[in-house]
């Protein structure tokens, strides 16, 4: 069900199943045009494999560009409302780019994995939580 480990190495993503949900931690410090395509591809494979409740831990990400943002939007679009992709613990600088592009209104963003998993476990609502 999982893609070969080499995929993971290229983008340095750590994956963990928790009940219904999959938590993926980005270990790469830069989500940019050279690393984002691998993230996008991996997320697409995971969703295709039936993982529809996803949490992406961004705590290690120091830099993101629009192709990094784009990889996440791509995954969300692929879900077509059937499931959710939530984000965990972006740094303030990274979070500021979600705000600037209004993507903070598109993604639900949580301070830690526990809260993200709780939100994914409850029936998915279309409205974002207070931020």
């Amino acid at each position, binding site marked *: 069900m999982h893609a070969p480990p080499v995929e993971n190495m290229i983008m340095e993503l750590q994956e963990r199943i928790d009940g219904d949900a999959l938590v993926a931690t980005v270990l790469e410090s*830069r989500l*940019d*045009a*050279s690393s984002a395509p691998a993230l996008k591809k991996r997320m697409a494979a995971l969703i295709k494999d039936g993982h529809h409740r996803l949490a992406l831990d961004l705590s290690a990400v120091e*830099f993101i*560009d*629009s*192709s990094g*943002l*784009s990889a996440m*939007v*791509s995954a*969300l*679009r692929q879900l077509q409302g059937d499931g959710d992709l939530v984000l965990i613990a972006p740094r*303030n*600088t990274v979070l*500021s*780019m979600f705000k*600037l*592009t*209004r*993507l903070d*209104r*598109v993604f639900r963003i949580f301070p830690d994995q526990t809260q993200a998993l709780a939100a994914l476990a409850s029936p998915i609502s279309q409205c974002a939580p207070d931020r």
Partner: protein
Amino acid sequence: MRTGSISLTIDSEFQHVFLVGIAVQQICSWIPLSDQSAFEMEMAVVEAVNNSIEHACHNQSGHPITTRMKLSEDRIIFVISDAGDAVIGLPEMPALDDHLASPPERGRGVQIMRAVMDEVAYRTDGTSNFVTMVKYLPIVRTEDN
């Protein structure tokens, strides 16, 4: 504060862009700009360089992309240049709140550049294309003795 100029040149491949980003971010931090502002400068420059690679050089390697950075007392000027295909201009700032229901996958680079910089302009001289971005600095007066 110190003034000076430097040109950062990479080949037109995404794998090299982080080196420009790191250099820009650290020079901005040194000025000093805040972490947030230095991050924003890095973002804008990385977006502009990515666009040169993708839209002007069509993801073909072998073309130099230069980021010229000029520090003066009251501003930082960045000029990103390539010898790739020219366009008439960059898109204007989009209406940010459109598409919230179905966000587009792409098209956020120029938006970020325009949001974090004080000036963004595009021009071409037929040979090279230039994206000029300017950030104004707060003027810090040293105490008069």
